[in-house]
């Protein structure tokens, strides 16, 4: 491939110019990867904190009573809703922990331990004690445990909605990553909850649904609300401000990335244009010797490809270094490199480089060898 051979020789013979443009592309792609990964990780962290430990869609009865056939509904959702990771029927009630004049309210959820684990990720969030929901056991948050000076194995007393006291053994203490949740939420087994609420075996307060795609909650809720006996509430409708913030963040991130790419494109285009001017004489000679317009133009396409591939690969390395360096900084979350996004950034870098060669290719194609050979 003669055009490739000439292109690589032209680049090798101008090492400083070649090095600078490769460095320029590398920095652009590295910034692209770093900013993209930072924003993605930041958003993932924020979303995980916000909805990672809560149901994404909650189904309740339209008439505010128990949900009829809740377990059947949960089973049906798990079978027929492709985006549902888990659906679990739960019984919920409020209780109060009273110590002298101090009272602390608790929102208690009673449900199957496996289902609750998928919804809240409890088994991995228990920091003391065990993840166990046997009859008479309760899982409380770190905030509540601290306020009541309770530890795993201790017995606590709560006032249930009918005013009667009930004792629970603390089987484990969890940390859901949010102070409010750690202070106000607790979990018990479904049978004890049924007793407290005087519910029969088949009666449940709600069905909690966890999704594989958190941003599909509004759509899924809309589908599930087709059943006239239930109401579906999705987390997105309850966190619209957060969503607006995330969208604004994504928008500004995309804008930054577009401008970085434009800067990279301008850098490559200007360097190739300068190279085309610098090599006018050589191209004219090659054309006089019989090189066709397309083959001459290919020289600059190859130059762009070499610069784009070299710069993008260097950018991948530099981006990885930046992210690794960020990982060493004392920040509360880590940036994850998305291989797909990094590969896409590198491909975009190569495509931008190729697109930048259009002007020099056109200039080269139009070059008349006579202009060159008659001058010294």
């Amino acid at each position, binding site marked *: 491939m*003669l055009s490739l*051979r*000439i292109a690589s*020789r*032209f680049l*090798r*013979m101008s090492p400083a110019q070649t090095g600078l443009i490769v460095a320029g592309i590398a920095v652009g792609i590295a910034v692209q990867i770093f900013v993209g990964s930072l924003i993605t990780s930041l958003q993932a962290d924020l979303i995980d904190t916000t909805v990672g430990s809560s149901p994404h869609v909650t189904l309740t009865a339209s008439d505010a009573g128990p949900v009829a056939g809740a377990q059947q509904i949960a089973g049906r959702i798990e079978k027929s809703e492709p985006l549902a990771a888990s659906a679990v029927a739960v019984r919920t009630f409020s209780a109060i922990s009273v110590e002298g004049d101090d009272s602390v309210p608790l929102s208690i959820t009673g449900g199957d331990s496996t289902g609750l684990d998928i919804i809240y990720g409890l088994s991995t969030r228990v920091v003391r004690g065990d993840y166990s929901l046997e009859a008479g056991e309760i899982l409380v948050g770190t905030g509540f445990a601290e306020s009541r000076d309770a530890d795993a194995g201790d017995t606590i007393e709560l006032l249930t909605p009918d005013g009667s006291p009930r004792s629970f053994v603390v089987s484990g203490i969890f940390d859901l990553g949010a102070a409010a949740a750690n202070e106000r939420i607790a979990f018990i087994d479904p049978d004890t909850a049924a007793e407290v609420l005087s519910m029969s075996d088949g009666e449940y307060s709600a069905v909690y649904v966890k999704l594989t795609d958190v941003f599909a909650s509004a759509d899924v809720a809309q589908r599930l609300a087709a059943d006239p006996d239930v109401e579906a509430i999705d987390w997105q409708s309850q966190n619209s401000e957060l969503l607006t913030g995330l969208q604004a963040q994504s928008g500004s991130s995309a804008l930054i990335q577009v401008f970085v790419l434009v800067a990279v494109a301008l850098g490559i285009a200007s360097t190739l244009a300068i190279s085309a001017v610098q090599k006018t*004489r*050589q191209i004219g*000679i*090659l*054309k*006089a*010797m*019989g*090189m*066709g*317009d*397309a*083959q001459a133009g290919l020289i600059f396409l190859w130059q762009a490809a070499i610069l784009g591939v070299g710069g993008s690969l260097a950018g991948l390395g530099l981006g990885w270094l930046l992210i690794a360096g960020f990982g060493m900084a004392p920040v509360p979350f880590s940036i994850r490199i998305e291989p797909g996004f990094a590969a896409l950034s590198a491909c975009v870098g190569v495509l931008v480089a190729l697109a930048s060669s259009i002007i020099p290719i056109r200039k080269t194609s139009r070059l*008349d*060898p*006579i202009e*060159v*050979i*008659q*001058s*010294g």
Partner: protein
Amino acid sequence: MAELLRAESLEKIYGTGETATRALADVSFELAEGEFASIIGQSGSGKSTLLNLLGLLDTPTSGRTLYRGEDTASRGRRERARLRNSLIGFVFQFHHLLPEFSVFENVIMPSLIAGARSDTDLRSRAEETLGLLGLSGLEGKSATALSGGQKQRVAIARALINRPALILADEPTGNLDTTNTAAVYALFRSVSAQTGTAFLIVTHDRAVAQQTDRVLEVRDGRLVQDVRNRYISASG
């Protein structure tokens, strides 16, 4: 000798309307295979325009150029480039070597453009050509590391590599001293005799033109003399 090249009523006009300039008018001649000829003319006489038309670097406003009986007038840019590569070797006043490449790479470049592989055959052909021009041993040297005379000989080797039927040389010794000039013309003559390649050398120097077998004189864009046997009119 068989006819290699025929120019028929070549005319070249640059520009249009009031600014139109006729650079060449009604130029017709034939050149035989292996002929050793020159085109002479003062600066601005139209000789370089004629060379560009004969070398298929430019197209005439009217008239046509035929190579071995084939009309080139209707050929597109791509086809003319292919014909240039296979039929014609160029030697320019300013040698125009590619500074990024070695002597060897410069010499084989026309063959690579033609699609040849850089294999043993091509290497031996290039070494043979370089040997013919007294450049053996310089293959790996950078084109920029040569003297003016050596550069011009490398340019001649490059022009010969595809074994063209015709070498078009435009003031090939314009930048050389007397000794090198004489050496280059001796070389042209020797190469022509050994390879049967026709030469058409453009020069403004009568003394140089007189070393060729046939002199075509261009004045004011017209072919005013076509003299053989090394005789040129004193008034020319």
